């Protein structure tokens, strides 16, 4: 089997679940015959038919609302929102139904559904095609918000999301859809949903990120290693509910933390992580927790979006600052 990109791993996981469970149904705009704008559903319509891979009208509230109804009947809809910037027409369905149906009915109706969305910037796409608004979803109790950062994790986490008895928001970092190839075994093994991945051990500082920014974070750790700074690198994976325990444990060891986030700074997931660590690991912290983030502005259009994106240098500089702090 050839090595897969992240988007191919998404495709593989979708195919695996469609084949395994007749209740799994995909729906979204242009996901059928055309295979989706990023080809995440490539070939699935051809293989599983138009009743399993459904093109919907251009209406996000419909896509999510219909998924709620299907899930309430015990189906396992996997909805695609074409870009995360277009989730807002469906926000009412998510906030008032998806996140609440189990609670509202005291467990009588449950919603085993997934909402997949490509997200993040850096691909030179028009307005609304580059946003990272995971914090908005992460603030809604009742949801799980999951973000893979490698092909293997995309495969394993998407299986877990589809099999989860509750709604899962699955955000796909489109900037790295095709950046890395990795051997992904189609073994049907799901990854745990609510656990950070400590993917590199280190002793000086804990670097925390998720999604596409893991790329810059890993590079920064490499670069810093050459300067003799040992970074522990953590892929948060599930930004809500957070696996705080793993993060605290790491910071208790390193005493320093830099959180890297593409989304605007104020009120992002990085702020929640920083708040939790500042509270729970205060006795271990020997420097302020730095957040390297996107700016509190609207993602610039493609000609200048590079100015917005957090970079390896910014991460390295932040680590240097916390290393020098005293």
């Amino acid at each position, binding site marked *: 089997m050839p090595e897969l990109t992240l988007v191919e791993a998404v495709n593989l996981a979708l195919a695996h679940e469609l084949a395994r469970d007749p209740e799994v*149904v995909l729906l979204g705009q242009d996901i059928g015959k055309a295979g989706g704008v990023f080809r995440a559903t490539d070939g699935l319509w051809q293989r599983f038919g138009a*009743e399993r891979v459904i093109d*919907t*009208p251009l*209406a996000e*509230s*419909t896509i*999510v*609302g*219909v*998924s*709620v*109804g*299907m*899930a*309430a*009947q*015990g*189906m396992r*809809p996997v909805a695609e929102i074409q870009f995360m910037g277009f989730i807002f*027409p469906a926000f*009412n*369905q998510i906030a*008032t*139904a998806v996140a609440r*149906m*189990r*609670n*509202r*009915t*005291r*467990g*009588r*109706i*449950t919603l085993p559904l997934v909402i997949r969305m490509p997200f993040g910037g850096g691909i030179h796409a028009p307005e609304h095609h580059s946003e990272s608004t995971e914090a908005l979803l992460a603030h809604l*109790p*009742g949801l*799980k918000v999951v973000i893979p950062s490698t092909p293997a994790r995309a495969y394993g986490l998407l299986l877990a999301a589809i099999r*989860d*008895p*509750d709604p899962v928001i699955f955000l796909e970092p489109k900037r790295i859809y095709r950046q890395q190839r990795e051997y992904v075994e189609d073994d049907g093994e799901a990854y745990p949903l*609510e656990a950070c991945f400590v993917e590199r051990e280190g002793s000086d500082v804990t670097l925390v990120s998720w999604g596409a920014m893991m790329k810059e974070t890993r590079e920064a750790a490499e670069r810093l290693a050459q300067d003799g700074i040992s970074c522990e690198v953590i892929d948060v994976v599930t930004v809500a*509910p*957070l*696996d*705080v*325990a793993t993060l605290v444990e790491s910071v208790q060891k390193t005493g320093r933390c830099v959180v890297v986030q593409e989304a605007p700074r104020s009120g992002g997931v990085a702020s929640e992580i920083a708040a939790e660590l500042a509270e729970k690991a205060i006795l271990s912290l020997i420097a302020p927790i730095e957040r390297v983030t996107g700016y509190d502005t609207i993602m610039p259009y493609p000609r200048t979006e590079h100015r917005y994106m957090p970079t390896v240098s910014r991460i390295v500089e932040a680590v240097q600052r916390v290393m020098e702090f005293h």
Partner: protein
Amino acid sequence: MATAARGGRKARPAGTGGELVARFEVRYLRFLDERGEWVAEPPAELLDPELQLRNYRDMLLLRRFDHKVLMLHRTGRMGTYPGTMGQEAVGVGMARPLTERDVLVPYYRSATDLYVRGAALHEILLYWMGDERGSDFKAPHMKHDFPIPICIGSQLPQAAGVATAIKLRGEQGRAVLTAVGDGGTSQGDFYETLNVAGAWNLPLVIVINNNRWALTEPTCAQTACQTLAQKAVAGGFEGIQVDGNDIFAVQAAVAAALDKARRGQGPTLIEALTYRLCAHTTIDNAARYVPKEELEAANAAEPLVRLRRWLQNQGILDDRLEAKLENEIKDEIEQEVELALNTPLPPPEAMFDYLYAELPEKLWPQRAEVIARERGTGDA
């Protein structure tokens, strides 16, 4: 409606004209008039005395229930409650033709259809007293029925989703029935539902409880349409208007539409014209904005009296039976009210225990805290 003259039938732009490519019409259905007399012949099966006595009994019960809830509210034992007075024929008439296999997706002013469907009054009471358990309907055939949605219009795409599941699974003889208010027809979700129901030819029946008011706004503040039924034209399927105070018309239209849906022949929109004879909710004072003459006229057209007249004329109902029904109803309501009032609070951890199948670790300390706090003292 003052705006009807602006409707689609008028005023073509000067100098256009053009070839006729599509034509649509809306029809209005009514059988029993205000005096309890036939204006048209209803489907024969609806003339069954037992059926209509049952309808009458349920409508009467709901009328009495409404009053009881108002009393409970006035004495501080009940939360905000949206009454159903005057709209009993809509709820009872729409829910009656449901089979156990169908799915009901109610709107928020739905005590009527929920009751007829099989929800216990104490469940409805608990819900409006502010207890989540009111939505955990215990009747086995209601397992898939949806809870009351407070967010206007949001239930409709969800109902379409249930219908989609039925269609994809090829389940014969199942349909979905949902409802919305006249005000709710202004929401995007209402129209998106019409559109997808048409596009996918879904087994879905949407009933508009057009009770002429959306909180304090009359229907003409919502729309220029002379009928709400015509909105189905935007979905590419049939819309029909019925006299919502005539239980025969409501039941006939819904039964036929459900039947059509169950046979795979697609969706129907049914506008039931009725009137909200009560306030918007128990905390509203409708006298502030409802014109008195309009209310009087509406009272004269209300659904219960005309069915009673017909049943009396038929010799199906007499004073003795009426008294017996009233007693039965009173007992049922009293018992259910007692049940609801005597339901102890859920344990404090309940606020966490239905959020996810398994509570994520991050929330364990919070759950522990609410339990500890409830046991401890303090003003918590």
